[in-house]
């Protein structure tokens, strides 16, 4: 009878520190992971639809599950359609919008896409709200970021309508094809969000 408690205590004494060490190591890894992500995605400054300057990683990406698409406000076909599709996805995941779900629309045409133009575009789609940022700004900064996201092309007209989604903390990224339907996209995002909970 006395052995059990002592066993328990021994276990506790051994296991708890081990667990603590493991979680400390896990935390250490998480911090490393974040730093790696920060230096990869950069904290270059962009400008949101309200004209505010934001740092790309810390203000837009960190701790979020992001859905990224690429637009330019003078695009009259593909961009409105893609954005519209994403609003349908958003409607299915209302509870998560803003936390942790973050929609990010990046301008491929920052010279013409003023913040006011981005806001106008966002409003047309009822997409001007917390949890959806429309980003424009310095052309070089956008080039760098778009390249990092693997979506760079010199020809704006031929731009990829591919979308990206990712759980930033987990560094788990997926592509979303332009022809995928909202229910399927929403399901993919749900799984990305769940990822975070299993860590």
């Amino acid at each position, binding site marked *: 009878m006395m052995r059990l408690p002592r066993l328990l205590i021994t276990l506790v004494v051994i296991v708890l520190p081990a667990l603590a060490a493991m979680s400390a190591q896990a935390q250490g890894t998480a911090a490393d992971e974040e730093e790696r992500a920060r230096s990869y995605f950069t904290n270059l400054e962009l400008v949101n639809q309200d004209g505010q300057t934001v740092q790309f990683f810390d203000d837009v990406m960190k701790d979020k599950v992001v859905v990224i698409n690429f637009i330019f406000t003078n695009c009259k076909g593909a961009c409105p359609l893609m954005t*519209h599709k994403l609003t349908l996805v958003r409607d299915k995941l209302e509870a998560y919008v803003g936390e942790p779900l973050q929609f990010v629309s990046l301008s491929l045409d920052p010279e013409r896409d003023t913040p006011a133009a981005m806001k106008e575009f966002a409003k047309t789609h009822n997409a001007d709200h917390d949890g959806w940022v429309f980003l424009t700004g310095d052309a070089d900064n956008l080039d760098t970021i778009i390249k990092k996201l693997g979506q760079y092309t010199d020809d704006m007209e031929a731009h990829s309508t591919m979308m990206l989604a990712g759980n930033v903390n987990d560094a788990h990224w997926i592509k979303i094809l332009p022809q995928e339907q909202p229910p399927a996209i929403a399901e993919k995002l749900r799984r990305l969000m769940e990822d975070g909970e299993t860590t």
Partner: protein
Amino acid sequence: MHYHPRTFTKSPVALRGAIVLFIMLLLALVKVTHAGELSEQEQRGKRLYTSGESASGAPVTALMSRGATEIPASILPCVGCHGDDGRGRPEGGVVPPDITWSSLSAKSGHEHEYGRSHPAFDESTLGRAILNGIDSGDNALDVAMPRFQMSAADLQDLIAYIKRIETDLDPGLSDDKVRIGTLMPRAGVAGSQGQAMYLVLRSYFDDINSRGGIHGRQIELVPGGYDQDPTKVTWEARDFIEQQAPFAMASGYLSGIEGPISALAEEYRIPMVGPYTPLPQDGNSLQRYTFYLTSGLVQQATVLAASKRVISDDSASRLAIVYPYGAVYDQAVRTILSVVDGDGMDDVVTLGYQLPYFDATDFAETLSKQDIDRVLFLGAVTDLQRLAAEAANLGWSPELLLPGIYASSGLFEFPSAFEGSVFVAYSTLPTDHTPRGVELFEKLHEDHGLDYRHSTQQISAYVAAMVLAEGIKRAGRELTREKLVLELEQLADFQPGLMPPISYSHSRRIGALGGYMLELNLEQKSFGTAGKWIELQY
């Protein structure tokens, strides 16, 4: 009182004549109103066309990809692909056809890409095209064209507008107003210059308005301010144009941002008249919408470079162009060279330096060794004066040529050895001021309580307003941006009274193209020979 029915006893012929005349007058009136204000139905149609929304709130939706996707029409309004004027802009490999009524209903019909040909449209086949995506020849339209769903009343309204679109007025234009924009910096010295320019514009247009406007339209002047952060200026200008939708722009302080702003004028097809800048973007045949008043740095330098040497008429004169490194100056030098090359001149020597440091000793040695006898200097007059001092030490006395843009106080502080050898080119001189021109300018100041600070910039704004008003007047009541451009191109020897005469043409966009070359009288600190105007052609 007795009413005399005598008028009705006139002969039948005269009566018929009177009736015909009356009907013609009525028709004339109708024509004028037709080109002007939209009817209520047309306004509803315009709203559908530009925003995809029905005034009644009834749903308007678009089916894409052969019915696979349904979206609200507000996301893909007609204007996005077909343009404000119905003439279409290409995007993503799709070229929307011209849907103005004169095009749609052309008796000959059309043949489009991939062999799709069709006869003339009428209202019913147009409606069918919008709803079902087939043309008047029963061919399917390109998959990029959505099929729209809307109420029958909305469709009628939309068709009514499409029939009218080509006679709808340009932005910034209504029956009784024409909106003119002007861009000025908000802060700093440039800001206060801009403010002085704005007050002159406003006073000038107020005077016109108090006399009844131009062809029944009042001029509404809207100022657009910008901060001088270069990355943001183009955005601010773009937002201004989008939000204010000016019909045309007058004057404007564009020093340092000429390129992007004139590119915006081209993009939006907004006539821009008389922007204030030392660098008119001329020589670019793609540029149509910006009309400059006076010559700038490049033209002044060219006038100097191309002029014959004054001191001796040795035609084999050796010219050196000394300039600071930088894109603007590189371009200026290239332009100057293209004009003076092969002009009975030996090779022109060009020497650049890195601002702000100009090594006068080094340059004097180098240039004197190369037997340079004329130096065209694109830089601060104080640096040129240092070069002159070094040259005097070496016993080298070339002619010194300076564009008037660089002239500042202390202009005459050259070594006396250079008496008779220093020349400056100006784009305008006080001798351009006629008594009448001065009188009107002073009256404007008195009437509106203006002061005379920044008078150079004020004069520029004043003449810009004058030229724009003249163009609008000549375009007549049926005013459009295109007509304004065409009328401005017709201006020949237009006398503003405070500047050299202004002439444009279909290929010329600097009104007073050339410059006055003046010799400096160093001892008397005045200008020697009366300035002779040297006209440039290119």
